């Protein structure tokens, strides 16, 4: 298993940059551009959620903890130390007229498992994606 941690501040530009940095790293191992795009969207959504909500208008630390098993799967943990999740977390697709609230739904559609939890001061979105052998660089 390969592990790597990436970190940035939670401002919108930096949070998007962090997602791109992680996807760039994953590109060393994965050759399937559609899967890299899926991972990019999931990371961008999770990081944007931190930028938008975690520090309630302010900025704070944003971390992505990556673990990958070549030929098998990728695990991503998107972590912040902000105010945590308000109430129950929703993974449903909102109504078409809603301008927001689709991030976790998109992550749930593109991943094999997604979980949201708090541990001590850390708020964590954990994403698991199985990736078949043909998608990996040999």
């Amino acid at each position, binding site marked *: 298993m390969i592990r790597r941690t990436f970190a940035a501040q939670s401002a*919108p*530009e930096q*949070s*998007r940059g962090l997602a791109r940095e992680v996807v760039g790293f994953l590109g060393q191992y994965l050759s399937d551009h559609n899967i890299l*795009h899926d991972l*990019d*969207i999931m990371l*961008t*959504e999770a990081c*944007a959620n931190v*930028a*938008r909500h975690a520090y309630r208008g302010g900025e704070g630390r944003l971390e992505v903890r990556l673990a990958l098993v070549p030929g098998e799967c990728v695990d991503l943990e998107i972590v912040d130390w902000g105010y945590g999740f308000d109430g129950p977390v929703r993974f449903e*697709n909102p109504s*078409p*007229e*809603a*301008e*927001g*609230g*689709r*991030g976790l*739904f*998109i992550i749930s*559609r*593109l991943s094999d498992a997604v979980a949201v939890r708090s541990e001590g001061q850390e708020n964590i979105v954990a994403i698991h994606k199985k990736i078949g052998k043909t998608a990996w660089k040999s």
Partner: protein
Amino acid sequence: MEKLTISRGKNALLLKYDGEVTLDVTPQLKRVLEAELTENEVDTVVLDLSGVGFMDSSGIGFLVFVNTRMRSAGKACYLCRLSPKVRKTLGLVQLLSYFQVIENEGDVAALLS
């Protein structure tokens, strides 16, 4: 915004953005569009998405915002030239049939003539 191209037809406005449509740019795109709609008489907005290689839920929110803004005023909003990534993302959130998507180039030209 240097990646934004605005073309005008008779009471129609075509917006084309080349690049990623994410939380980085959607607030500014909203401001530019609002200014255009306030300053000009616009009956139809057409969003050209051919140059969008990546769009997140904030980008989807921008499309919904424009659509709602126009239709609630009795006006029209169309999407056109969807890039494969945009088509996939809108399909993922089941919005492809919610928006009015123009698939025919002739129809785009007619709106802007």
